[in-house]
């Protein structure tokens, strides 16, 4: 293999190639080659190293959570005071209300996508969904721009999904998908005793050598690396990062998938995974709002408030952005089924940790939560703001294999004043 120093000295194109080659060598992605130091300076105010993106799929109601109002539009929910003056929350979020000083609530989100798939797509990538290209989500994009953070563990993990891809970026940057947060990494249980397993591996290698030597192609060679890594991984303690069975505060997070997903996210971030996306469904509350929020909001409250506390206690909150995103809000008017329908014109998202100024509210809606009144923020701006917080240059162009240029957040405007 070419020496690292030699490659590092070459022009940026070969450096990029080198990064990709390095990234290929690991669990979904990289082992054994520590990453090159970043060459550009992080932007002012940006101090986050990690990102936990909690994605509430279905369209979280803004009125019952972070943008409560007065009167009929509130339906079953009442506004409660929080730790911070002038910040009010829905009454099912007492845990978050007690930690309002850590949160920056954005009440001026606004999107043009009223359908779930399209709305989710732009909230996770900053781009509109197209039939001619697939855009990367934030995890792989961050790895592309910042390099890989850890050695054995992947740079990004998505919890609550059984598949993921890196869009037009190198497939090796795809987040490792974990369907069930308590299930660990698939296919990591070895069915024979260690000695026999080693014997098998050794023979596979012996019998594979000739083929590897016969063909000078990247493909077979990369599989040799993947086998090495898989073998190392199976024997390393790093896999324990995916095991949340022994965590003492598991109960505080709640037994929901969201709660357990947030616990796993904390553990992964602690072990060097840069980006963890935790996806939780059930927010598409077209009917019987009262019952639905009665189930889902306490899950969110327990999961996120425990996560914030846990990160703070471990000294990780300052370096970890915790974001809550969703594709749209829900209609202020309660429908005939006592539910709320899709409402992209105004909705709420939340940012915390990672240099974000807590105890703040950005943007506002009118008295009924129907129209954005000040500081509108589009999905592109939301993504770009997170990118800014993670220290990326949101103007840097990345080219797809067909030479189309893309940026982190699709030229969205980072709201830098959210950072303190």
């Amino acid at each position, binding site marked *: 293999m070419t020496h690292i120093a030699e490659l590092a000295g070459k022009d940026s194109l070969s450096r990029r190639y080198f990064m990709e080659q390095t990234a290929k060598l690991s669990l979904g992605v990289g082992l054994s080659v520590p990453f090159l130091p970043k060459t550009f300076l992080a932007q002012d105010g940006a101090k986050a190293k990690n990102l936990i993106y909690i994605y509430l799929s279905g369209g979280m109601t803004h009125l019952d959570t972070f943008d409560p109002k007065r009167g009929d539009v509130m339906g079953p929910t009442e506004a409660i005071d929080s730790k911070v003056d002038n910040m009010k929350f829905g009454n099912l979020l007492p845990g978050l209300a007690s930690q309002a000083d850590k949160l920056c609530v954005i009440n001026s989100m606004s999107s043009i996508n009223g359908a779930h798939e399209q709305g989710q797509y732009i909230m996770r990538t900053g781009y509109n969904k197209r039939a*001619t290209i697939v855009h990367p989500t934030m995890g792989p994009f961050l790895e592309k721009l910042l390099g890989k953070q850890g050695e054995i563990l992947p740079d990004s993990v998505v919890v609550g999904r059984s598949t993921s891809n890196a869009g037009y970026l190198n497939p090796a940057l795809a987040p490792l998908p974990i369907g069930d947060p308590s299930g660990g990494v698939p296919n990591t249980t070895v069915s024979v005793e260690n000695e026999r397993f080693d014997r098998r591996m050794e*023979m596979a290698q012996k019998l594979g050598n000739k083929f590897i030597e016969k063909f000078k192609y990247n493909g*077979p060679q990369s599989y040799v690396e993947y086998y090495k890594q898989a073998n190392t991984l199976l024997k390393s303690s790093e896999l324990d990062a995916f095991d949340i069975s022994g965590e003492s505060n598991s109960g505080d997070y709640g037994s929901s998938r969201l709660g357990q997903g947030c616990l796993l996210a904390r553990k992964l971030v602690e072990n060097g995974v840069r980006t963890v996306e935790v996806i939780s469904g059930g927010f598409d509350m077209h009917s019987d709002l009262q019952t639905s929020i009665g189930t889902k909001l306490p899950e969110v409250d327990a999961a996120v408030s425990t996560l914030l506390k846990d990160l703070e206690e471990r000294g990780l909150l300052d370096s970890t952005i915790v974001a809550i995103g969703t594709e749209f809000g829900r209609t202020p008017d309660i429908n005939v089924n006592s539910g709320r329908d899709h409402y992209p014109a105004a909705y709420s998202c939340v940012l915390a940790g990672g240099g974000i100024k807590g105890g703040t509210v950005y943007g506002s809606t009118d008295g009924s939560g129907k129209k954005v009144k000040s500081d509108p923020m589009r999905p592109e701006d939301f993504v770009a703001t997170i990118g800014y917080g993670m220290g990326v240059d949101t103007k840097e162009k990345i080219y797809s294999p*067909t030479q189309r240029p893309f940026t982190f957040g699709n030229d969205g405007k980072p709201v830098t004043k959210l950072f303190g």
Partner: protein
Amino acid sequence: MKNSTRTVIRGIFIALFALGLAPFAEARTWTSTEGKPLQAIFLGIDGANYKFKTANGTEITVPKDRFIKADQEAAERLNKIGDDSYTLASARKLDLLLATQLKKQGFASFNKPLPDDLFVRRVYLDIIGRIPTRDEFIEFAESAREDKRAALIDELLLRPGYSSHMFNYFADMFRLHATDFNNGVRMDPYVQWWRDQLALNTPYDEIVSEMITAQGNVGQTPASGFLLRDTGMEFDAFANFGQVMLGIDISCAQCHDHPFDEWTQIDFYKMAAFFGNTQREARIAGGSMMSANYANMPNAPENWIGEMISFAEANKGINMKNPDNSRQFRYYLRALGWNVTDNENMETKLPHDFRGSGGKPNDVVDPRTLVGKAAKTGGKTRRQGLAEWLTAPENPRFAIVIANRMWQRAFGRAMMIPVNDFNDDQIAKASQPEALKFVTREMIRVGYDLREFMRILYNTRAYQSISTAEEPDWADDYYFSGPILRRMRAEQAWDSLMLLSSGPEIDEKKGADGSFYKALLDVDFKTISNEAIWERYELWKSNRGNRMGNAMIAEAGVLEPVYFSDNELRASELPQPYLPGSLLDTFGQSDRIITDDHNFDGSVPQVLALMNGSVTSQMTGISSKIVNDLEELDGPGDQVRGVFFTLLNRYPDDEELKIGMTMIEDYGDDGISDLAWSLMNSPEFLFIQ
């Protein structure tokens, strides 16, 4: 079908002269039981006789039993797939063109010929999409027949595995997927239509024409799925159309003139205007509560939805004002009305921010072809005009695009890269310009019969060469001294693993065919009663969700579903695309959002699946049929060879034999299972060399 085959054959006689093919030189020499030779082109079996055409052009008839047994076998095969004199003549001509250019470029000739064992593995994987069984391997290896390679190629091309594997390619290219459309709209009948066309070996130009000109919903006209698939994303759909049909990526020109190519923004919209009056989906005018105001549908009363709603409100307790009461009913009506129609009131307009020359924002544009001659649209719909223009022999792009793609399937690398975007300059500078022209003409000569086209390629010396040892850079010219080394597609890996766990019976097993969903939508509005539509709605409602895709019609004409399980099916018979997180997904099966998106890269999750996954455990476990059969073989030598035949389909060399035998001598039956595990987990297993 019969007629078009005859036309093709007539075409062959005319075209062969022009191409300089000499089929008679390649015609098989038939041998009588008395040892008399007859060199002739085989025309077919007629009762107890064989019909031939001799070199002087006369047709003769000879009784079957006059020929030796090997020739009788050959006649049975050729009767099904067609005589191979033209095929072999074409393969020789192609070899000559390739070899001439190789020499010109300073290469001695092709790579060394592929040995029998590597040949058998390669053609099984390339043609029927899976590795051979141990028995299939041995049968070929032990055959002494002179024509055994051509015979195996023909035999495999006639197996169901051929269309299964071809389906995987087109499913990727045409982004076939059955679910995730608007609230219960599905595309299962379209997916099944593709399976059927490939099984029937329908000429590719006919497949394409049918897709472009389809009218109706996906139950009435399954080919309409091609256009319905991208409802709501019409310009993106058109950009895909350009890539897939013309090999031109004009997606940039949607927003601005193409930066590198000659296409301008106005070109994009004029070409897109061929679909400008194509209406996809019966749209609901009037907001979320969905009034009765749907658009038109072929052969349906103008207000069929309004009538159906009145009927349901009057007789079935439906209340359209109550979303919970009427939601499923509305979804069914929408699925039923999710159709392709020509709507003369629709037109293509330039975008409000149009920046190019040749038009102003919001101008209405008429269709104009991007390349070649103008399309003739007189007396036809725009789409009919487009389909005829596209598939006409003089279209400069259609044949070359599909020929180049099929070439890529055989050689692992296309002549024109990437297959969905290459321009005339690149064609002029092709590494093998004469061969490229030749295969393009051959595609037209065989009438877009892809099986016959692949048969030509597989019979070339170029294809039957060992793979090039060093990976050619994609940016460098490659002269095709042989195929390149390829990793199996996800579907080849899946089908091979299925073979190992379940045996060759998997080739014949069918999955759900979308017939239940098709029947629910396939209504003839002229004859059907409202009551019968309501009956379909109720079946729809009670079978919603994922179950619908696995439901099939129990008997023709009886609307009763039977459910299919996904167990032990080949990739092509599974729901399309298969489940996220499945082995197919892990090995790179496309999620079918964009075209040609299969991923051939490795990953740690892939190797973990091969090391510790369920198929491996089953195959190397104590109740594995494969391991049990190998245990029955006579001694460690045969056992080692048996494991190699089963997994890598080749002979072990002396050193490998020794390593394997020591393993079995030391560890007994455990050694066999360990050896099998090791071969499955050596990188060679996943590659086609």
